[in-house]
């Protein structure tokens, strides 16, 4: 039956996917907030986190190795950190090499968008070129057993890993943006870059920092996604598209909106799959994107460019 069969287990899967979408969507929404740019290459930032985590865990455990107990915790945390760092570095380089020259020249926005899609294609093909084009799975980091049940639906270790890391990162981000000097800078640039610059905000630095923060979250999400699925050079495309949908769903530029949008999208997608065949899964997200643009283009929580959190 549509929506009712396996409701709770689909809800858990939906939350799991939703947290990952939310983490990626934050990268889109932050960059859109400060530059009004759809950073198509963010899906490759996500992918780079997946690859970094994969290489770390393969190096630590061997390609077919596995971890248990305390080592599991350590490897997962290390993977998330390395994935985040890789994502952050790629995002930083991306801004430095591809977008900054355009910004210096005050290039039209079309040029930014074309560069973004170009960077996306360059990066994912480069990953395919350097690391091989077969998809690879992350070694077994823990025994993915059922921890407890919610209304008869099992919650597995993987679900908890994703939920705990995502919630921690999102809380941290929310605090940083709302209360730190860095967050103040980001909000100032998002609100009015020229005025912010007149008031002594170093715009270049703030934009770099925004890219790095988005990259950290996206890269970490890449590793978390890689644990549950697999890592390949094209892994970023579909999650990237969905995460952008999530960002628009929540209201682009709105940080809490991106978190909510990601979770809602994950849930709706998983519940919706019961109505259609699984191969139609990706169509649901696209349908949602078109529906929001038609009926509520400012998203669930409204666009709050510069008034984030």
């Amino acid at each position, binding site marked *: 039956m549509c929506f009712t069969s396996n409701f709770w287990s689909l809800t858990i899967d939906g939350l799991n996917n939703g947290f990952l979408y939310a983490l990626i969507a934050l990268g889109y929404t932050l960059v859109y907030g400060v530059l009004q740019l759809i950073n198509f290459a963010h899906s490759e930032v996500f992918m780079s986190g997946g690859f970094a985590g994969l290489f770390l865990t393969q190096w630590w455990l061997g390609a077919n190795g596995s971890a248990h107990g305390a080592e599991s915790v350590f490897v997962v945390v290390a993977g998330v950190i390395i994935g985040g760092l890789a994502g952050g570095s790629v995002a930083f380089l991306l801004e430095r090499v591809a977008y900054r020259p355009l910004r210096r020249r*005050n*290039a039209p926005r079309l040029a930014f968008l074309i560069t973004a899609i170009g960077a996306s*294609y360059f990066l994912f*093909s*480069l990953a395919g070129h350097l690391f091989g*084009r077969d998809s690879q799975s992350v070694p077994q980091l823990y025994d993915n057993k059922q921890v407890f049940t919610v209304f008869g639906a099992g919650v597995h270790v993987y679900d908890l890993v994703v939920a705990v890391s995502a919630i921690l990162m999102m809380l941290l981000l929310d605090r940083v943006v709302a209360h730190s000097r860095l967050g103040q800078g980001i909000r100032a640039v998002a609100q009015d870059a020229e005025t912010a610059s007149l008031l002594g905000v*170093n715009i270049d630095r703030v934009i770099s920092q925004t890219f790095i923060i988005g990259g950290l979250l996206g890269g970490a999400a890449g590793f978390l996604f890689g644990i549950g699925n697999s890592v390949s050079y094209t892994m970023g495309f579909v999650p990237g*598209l969905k995460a952008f949908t999530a960002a628009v769903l929540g209201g682009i530029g709105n940080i809490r909106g991106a978190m909510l949008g990601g979770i809602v999208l994950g849930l709706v997608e998983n519940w919706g799959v019961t109505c259609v065949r699984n191969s139609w899964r990706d169509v649901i997200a696209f349908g949602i994107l078109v529906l929001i643009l038609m009926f509520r283009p400012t998203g669930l929580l409204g*666009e709050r460019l510069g008034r984030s959190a």
Partner: protein
Amino acid sequence: MTATSDISRPIGLSRTRQLLTHPTVRSFTTFVALGVVAAIVTGPQGRTGDPTYSISKALQPGHLFLWIGIALAFWLVLVAWLAVRGQVRAVVAGPRQQVRTVWGISYVRWVFYIVLIVLAVLIPREFFGEYWQEVTVTSIGIYALLAIGLNVVVGFAGLLDLGYIAFYAIGAYATAYFTGTLPVQPPFTINPFFALPIAVVACMIAGFILGAPTLRLRGDYLAIVTLGFGELITILAINLDSITNGSRGAFGIPAFTIHLGPIHYEWGLDILPYYYLLLIFIVLIYWLFHRLENSRVGRAWTAVREDEVAAQACGIPPVKYKLLAFAIGASTSGFAGVLYASKNSFINPSIFTVNRSILVLVLVIFGGMGSLAGSIVGAIVVQGFFALVLKNNWFDPADIYMYVGAVLIGMMIFRPQGIIPSKRRAREIGLAERGLGSADALAAPAGSPTS
């Protein structure tokens, strides 16, 4: 964004800092970096499970220094050019003016165009082997037609369409349907020639349906929606098994035939007749779009691109004109889809991936946004190069998209107007960079929910 770098730099800059930020030194380091990137990019194909293999091979001294050397050679050419630029321009100015005056005479232009067409007719027939004739038709000709259509969207209207191939797929599948080669049978089967208007209309409608909810919002939302639509079309083509025959696709799509009174002709297995047919269509559509560019509609597009608010104040409805451009682009893509389906006689979903849309985009950007001649030259140069790569096996065909991405980034940074710039478009980009107008149509129109 404001250019803060020059103002905010401290006055007492240290000597090393001064040296490092000197333009020549900066361009030198940029070119060395480009050399290193080129070395990595041209390295051997990596191996799964051995992440350092490709990069360590690529950074071996012989290969690395070869590419740094090549990059530095380019740098020297650039430095030399910058040094003599003034003199060269002074010398060339006189002859250039003469050429312009001669070009201004209309029969000179006509002679030039006719010579070009004659060359286009003769060269593939006289000088090309079977491989290159095939390339001329399926890789260059069809893509030139696609690029001309995308140019209306990207160049004339200043929008970004990343799912352009979806309409090509609609055209191709419409042909397959109306010639009775899909699992669902049409009410009547027709000659592919009659599928052309059907595909054009179908794609125009699809373009309106997709563009209408999106274009009243920010222009950049169109990019992501079309990207999603491009992906959606492949999913539909694969999954609607009972209609599209799934991933197997359609076979035996008939060739074009003409039955006009006493004339009977069928385009068979020979390549050249298709080439001539394609050439006729390209010339016709080129001429049509050239006229369109200088028409009332074309001027409206220019106005919207240069300043949307002012255009709106002058009574031009921006959403209507953007939608028109998007639909015209879509229908050109559908038109090309019919030609391809009938020429190839078989289609399947793997032909219509989003990657192909980006490939068409690179032809437009390389040639020059808004320049129809640029689109054709872009198709010839870029697709010709890739055909050469495939023939000589210079690198893995999957790597093509790495170069596509690099060309997009490089063009936007170093030459956003393309190799054969449209004068107007180049000027607009220059003006936009000085803070006048926008040079694209990505802002939300006034009164839009997202403005």
